[in-house]
């Protein structure tokens, strides 16, 4: 019976939905996390009698057809790249992006990854690195014993060196933009890499050409909204239950049919 298989696709889809929702909820307080959602589509239809077919030689056509669907499938789990709220931390190396763009980060193998997580640190050589110790591009080294580290909204990093009273510019942070941010590949650790779907990375200065500006002393919170997630969770759980009821119903009908013979 087709209904059994159709309901099974529904149960599998809802299981995946709950998985994605639980990952969103688990990352509710992850800096720079962007929530995912599952997109569903109906599966192919079996056109038992096709709409518009001729029913007589006089040109009468079927006004309605019989299209039996075969369930649901998942097309994708795109990330929603909306702005998260900014949390003031006061950390001089905490940087949040207000608007579009990603920090460019060099991975140990020399390739680049992109992240919205601006909770930076200094390594033993004074270079600005991420919490995992990956270099932030372009590499900026903070001289020892300098004070007054300032990151301007345009990304200029300056300090007051030891024994001086005037600030010196050390370097310039850049932001990378993608035409299709949802097409980036998540590699964990709050990082994404480029894919054919994301388009080529466009490096640029903060606050120019559509890129956002930077805010020192703040971190971008996750954009997960707990109420939305819980509502979706309830809906997914109920849908799962109803699909299981369809399986029970189909099973009952099959057992009725098989009990006819005795």
């Amino acid at each position, binding site marked *: 019976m087709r209904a059994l298989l159709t309901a099974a696709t529904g149960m599998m889809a809802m299981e995946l939905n709950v998985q994605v929702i639980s990952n969103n909820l688990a990352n509710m307080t992850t800096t720079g996390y962007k929530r995912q959602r599952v997109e*569903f589509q109906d599966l192919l239809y079996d056109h038992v009698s*096709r709409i518009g077919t001729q029913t007589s030689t006089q040109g009468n056509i079927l006004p309605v057809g019989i*299209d039996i669907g075969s369930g649901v499938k998942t097309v994708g789990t795109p990330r929603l790249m909306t702005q998260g709220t900014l949390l003031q931390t006061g950390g001089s190396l905490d940087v949040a992006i207000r608007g579009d763009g990603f920090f460019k980060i060099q991975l140990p193998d020399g390739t680049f990854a992109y992240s919205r997580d601006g909770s930076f640190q200094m390594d033993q050589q004074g270079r600005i690195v991420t919490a995992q110790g990956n270099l932030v591009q372009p590499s900026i080294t903070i001289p020892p014993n300098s004070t007054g580290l300032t990151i301007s909204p345009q990304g200029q990093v300056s300090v007051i060196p030891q024994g001086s009273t005037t600030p010196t510019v050390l370097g310039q942070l850049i932001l990378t933009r993608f035409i299709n941010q949802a097409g980036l590949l998540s590699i964990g650790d709050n990082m994404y890499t480029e894919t054919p779907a994301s388009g080529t990375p466009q490096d640029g200065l903060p606050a120019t050409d559509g890129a956002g500006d930077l805010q020192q002393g703040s971190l971008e919170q996750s954009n997960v909204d707990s109420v939305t997630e819980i509502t979706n969770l309830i809906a997914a759980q109920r849908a799962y239950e109803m699909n299981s009821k369809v399986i029970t119903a189909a099973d009952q009908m099959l057992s009725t049919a098989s009990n006819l013979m005795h």
Partner: protein
Amino acid sequence: MQNAVLVGLSREVALERELSVVANNIANMNTAGYKADGSLFEEYLSSRARGAETGSRVSFVQDRGIWHDMSGGSIEHTGNPLDAAISGQGFFVVQTPSGERYTRNGSFQLNADGILVTSDGYEVVGDGGPIRFQRNDRQIQISPDGTISVREGTSIQDSQRGKLRLVNFSDLQQLHKDGKSLFAAANGVQPQPVDTMTTVVQGSVEKSNVHAVVEMSRMIEITRSYAQVAAMLQQQADLGQASIDKLADVPA
């Protein structure tokens, strides 16, 4: 007497198909832009079979077609600037390899070239062809009439990127489902422009219009009728059995 069995059988086959339709509705309870289906049944008169005494004709049942419930689904706010829901009647137009298709699922994406596409990568049709964004576009705005405007780079002026094409049909039952949340029009059916009451809501997605309670009650109705018909078939079989037993019971 055989007719009773066959009439019962026609009902059982139709019910099984109806359950498939209900199962598909329930499986797509969370599919954006999904429209629920319902089965249409009709009486099918047999040309030969007649009742022995009254001469009335024996009628079977058959499922003649599926109708689509084209009422609007609830609109869920997502906050994603590329999500668009249609309030009122109408469809977005999507260009697929097999021609134009129509959808109410407005969870759009951009592709690597900056063109507005569906989740499957099919281009969304605007009034002047595909809708293409530039690399430095930001603050995408979709107005209620479907016009898409952006702020380019650091400009504070809006620039237009196109207008979503919205269409409607005089008879919505002339559309058939093509999977992937898409509808296809029957041969010769031309899309019409939408009326002014139809608006586009940005940052929202239209949910499926399946009513869980309705589908559940339909499902109960299907299983119960199935059992009733099965009981009737059983009685017919018992009747046959009894008559064979009686008639064959020749006194020794």
